[in-house]
Every structure is written in C-alpha cells, then in structure tokens.
C-alpha cells in the first residue's frame, strides 16, 4: 500500500544503543523502509597512525592495543609480524605457540562479543550477551593472569612475548578448552533453532559473493558469502601451518550465515587450542632479546593476519631510526561496512540494526 509519504532523515548515532560505539548512520526512510544509508565515521578518530610516527617501535604496541579493543592481542601480533619482517627477527618456538594460543583465545573472545551483541541487536534482552560474556570473562581472567590487565594487554613484543605465562596458566587453559564445546552446544540450543531468530536473520542483508570480493570484505563476512578465504590457510603466518583445522563457510551470505560461520569458527578455535596445548614446548625463552630502542633497517614491510574480524594488515615503513616512518593500519571492519548500503536498502530500520550487528565492527579499528 504505497501511500505517498515524504521521505525523512533519521540519524542513528553517533550515540545510539546499537551502533557498537560511536558510529553514525544517516538513514533516509520511507515509512520504515530504508531508502538510503550513509555511514558517517570518524567519531573515534584518534590519529593512531600519526602518533605512531612519534613513538618507538616498542611504544607503538600499546597504541595498537586500542585499535580492535575487543581482541586487542591480535593487533599486537599483526604489528609485531610486520616489524619482525622489517627487521628480520626470528621468534622463539614457545613464543610462537603462545601467540597462537592467545590469538585463538582472542578470536573466541571476539566472537563471544560479536554473537552476543548481534543477538542483543535482534532484541533478546541481554541474556545471550550475558551468557557469552560469562565465557569471555574466563578468557579475560586467563589474560589478566598472564599480563595483569583485563582488556588492553600490551603483552606481545617485537620478537616474542614480554614475559612467560605463569605456572597456573596451562591447567586453567586446559580446563577452559575442555569446557568450551559443551558451552557452544548449549548456546546453539539457546538460539540456533529459535524461529523468531531465524525469521529475523535468514535471507536478511544478503551480501553476494562477487560484491563481497569487490568491496574487499574479509573474515567471517567474506566467508559467510561463500568465499573460502582464510589467511591462516592461504598465507600461513606464525606457525598456523602446523595445525589441523577447517575453514567454515556459508552459502548465502545473509545475517544468519555470518552468525553461523562465527559459531563454527569458535569450534575450530577450540580445536586449534587443543592442538597447541599438546604441542607447546614446556620450557624455553619467549623473547628474542630485542633491545628496547632497536633500529630496524630502512625499508617497508607488510604483515597481515586473520584477525577475528578479518584481514588485519600493518604496513610499516622504517627509515632506520628508532621510530617508524609510517605505520598504516588496514582494518577489516572498514572494508566490511562498505557494502552496508547495498545490504540494507529495501529493508527496515530493525533489519539495518541487525545487518550492522552481523558485520561485527569495532569503531576503534575503523576510525583508528
């Protein structure tokens, strides 16, 4: 019944309950149907790239923590990989395993939040988020045990890790990994077959395969569209080639697929963690003794990893001094929101919210 109504603009954000931070969507509506969406970002632009030019290579690591603060250790890893590539530093064996363990823990932590917040956007009053957060707290506990902070860890260093894990860490991690599959099963019981959830997510916000590649999407968003692309498999960094795991993909590319890819990725992460616990050398140094004010040679290096949200890259240009000449951060979230407009047009406001939630962005990374 297309009664002629005047289209009107609605500002979602920058402070809105479900924009996951300070994101602003200028939505043009016809009734409740979306005619146009324009994402406006920059409300958290902190100039990290500029600040990194004035700090030494080690001092940039705390800054990278604040990019994707949901899974902050993965940022450290990407940056360290880039600098290690630039300086040609070899990382000790035990440190490599610890990196794998922590980046998989971070992936779990990120997906806990992503799925929980996504369901929160669907309107389930915080309960799925809270169950997820309980598990996330366990990971946070493990990280706090290791490095004393709950969120921004500043744990990895160029050439390894800042310190070894304490003795209590491994038993606790083993218990966590053993409990995890049961929890994921429970969670699937909670939401996977829920008819309302299916009705809200299936077929909503489809990102076709070609468009996903064209916009440079990565991570679960790309894989949900049916592209089997995981840097851990396709361009293995660190020691990911030693582990046996699968890359889950979706087939349609709707919100449900993105949710479901994340759920399955969590199981794979648990698998990797199990293998890593089995293989990690019991003793050994964790840090290739890199001086605090070291000078990598002039040149450029690109290090990228499969962060929980996608392809996180660091492009580091060195000029031979103690500070990097230029650090460029390539955030996955920024690419993933490019197609938000195409995904949302024709849907309703409520759908826009869950489409945005299913992309799982973090604004610290988009705005830098």
């Amino acid at each position, binding site marked *: 019944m297309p009664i002629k109504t005047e289209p009107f*603009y609605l500002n979602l954000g*920058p*402070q*809105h*309950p479900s924009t996951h*931070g*300070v994101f602003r969507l*200028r939505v043009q509506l016809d009734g409740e149907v979306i005619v146009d969406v*324009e994402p*406006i970002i*920059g*409300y*958290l*632009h*902190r*100039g*990290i790239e*500029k*600040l990194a030019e*004035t700090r030494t290579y080690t001092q940039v690591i*705390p*800054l990278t923590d*604040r990019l994707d*603060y*949901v899974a902050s250790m993965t940022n450290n890893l990407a940056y360290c990989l880039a600098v290690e590539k630039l300086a040609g530093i070899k990382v000790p064996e035990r440190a490599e395993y610890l990196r794998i363990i922590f980046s998989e823990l971070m992936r779990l932590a990120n997906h806990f*939040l992503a799925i929980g917040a996504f369901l929160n956007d669907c309107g389930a009053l*915080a309960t799925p*988020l*809270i169950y997820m*957060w*309980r598990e996330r*707290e366990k990971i*946070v506990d493990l990280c706090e045990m290791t490095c004393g902070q*709950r*969120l*921004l860890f500043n744990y990895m260093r160029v050439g390894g890790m800042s310190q070894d894990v304490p003795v209590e860490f491994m038993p606790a991690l083993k218990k966590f990994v053993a409990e995890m599959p049961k929890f994921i099963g429970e969670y699937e019981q909670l939401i996977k077959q829920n008819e309302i959830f299916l009705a809200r997510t299936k077929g909503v916000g489809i990102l076709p395969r070609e468009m996903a590649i064209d916009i440079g999407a990565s991570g679960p968003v790309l894989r949900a569209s049916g592209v089997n692309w995981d840097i851990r498999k396709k361009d293995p960094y660190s020691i990911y080639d030693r582990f046996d795991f699968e890359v889950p993909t979706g087939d349609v590319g709707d919100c449900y697929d993105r949710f479901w890819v994340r759920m399955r990725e969590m199981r794979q992460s648990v698998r990797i963690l199990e293998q890593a616990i089995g293989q990690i050398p019991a003793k050994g140094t964790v840090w290739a003794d890199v001086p605090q004010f070291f000078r990598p040679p002039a040149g450029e290096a690109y290090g990228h990893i499969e962060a929980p949200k996608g392809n996180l890259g660091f492009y580091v240009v060195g000029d031979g001094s103690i500070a990097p000449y230029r650090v460029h951060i390539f955030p996955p979230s920024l690419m993933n929101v490019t197609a938000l407009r195409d995904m949302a047009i024709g849907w309703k406001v409520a759908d826009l919210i869950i489409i945005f939630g299913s992309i799982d962005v973090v*604004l*610290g990374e988009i705005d830098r």
Partner: protein
Amino acid sequence: MEIVRPEVNTPQEADAVEGAYINSLIADSTSAIPDPDRWIDEAVHRNVFLTTTDTILAWGRQRSIFPMLFATACCGMEVISMSVSRFDLSRFGMDVVRFSPRQADVMIIAGTITWKMALATRMIYDQMAEPKWVVAMGACAISGGTFRESYSVTPGVNRIMPVDVYIPGCPPKPEAVIFGINRLHAKIIKGTMDDPMLSKP
C-alpha cells in the same frame, strides 16, 4: 555553548554546519572547567527542604541512578563487564540503562572523546535533566590519555563539561568503576567531600 540548529536541507549542509560547530567548540574549550566540588551544597541552598526530606530525597537519588552509557571506545567493554553478571551493576539499582538522555542521571563517559564526538557529547549532556552527574572513566576521558597529543582528541572531558568523579585506569577494572560509582553515591548522599569515611588513602 548554545547550539542553534539552522534549517538544513541536504546532508552536505548538515555536515558543514556540524563542522563549524566543532571548530567553534574547539575554540571555546581551551581551559578546563573547574570540578564541581560544592555542587551539592549549592543545590541544598537553592531549594530549602527539611533535613529529613532532603535525606530521603538523597536516598532515592543515590539508590536508583539510571546510567547513560556513553561508551565510545575501549572502556565501553569494561562497562559491559561491569553491568553483566559478574559484577552486576543492577545491585545498586542501576539496571535500568536508559539510552535516552532525558531519563538518565549519570553519564558514564567511557572512552576517548574526539573533537568530532565532543559536540554530540556536549549536546547529550545538555539534554540530560537535572540533577545530573558525569563520571569520567579511564585515562582518555580524564585527560585524553595516550592520545592527548593527537590533533583530534579532546584533552580531557572536563574541557567541555564538569566532571564529578574521575576513575583512572586504562581501562579501569570493573571494581574500580563500581568504587567510583560508590564515591558518586557518597557525593550524592553526603553532599560534601570532607567525610572521614571517604578519605581513603
């Protein structure tokens, strides 16, 4: 700062207007607004109540603060940690999280406030109904933190609005935030800072 919204027709005009406001906000806020130490005292003088009424009122206010979660960045995660099951802010009657500034009492500024965001922050603060409080959580909100030198970050949220409680940390632990909120409770109910119970080392 008075914000008058001129009529704008296109998104581009709206952006230009917003940019102009941001620039004038930067020009206006060069020095810190003094901390509202005596705020409660003044309020008491303004409306003369009987002491008991006043106590009951303060009790009501202190027991049911509706927070406005202004989670912009990293600290927002710890705000969530604090409100969900492990630390459960709702024990203090703060579970009714209002996203509309009209209904909120305390604005927990969790995260970096950039100049672009500062305008919105200030507007939301102006929209809140009296009595209202502001909690600056984390280094970024207190002073700009590690991004203080940056060209786009507000060096401390007390440049744009008065702050009642500062919670240092990057990010502060959930307990630290709850401690800060308890101090806010004390501020509300005592109306003074010279309380020996609060002079904790």
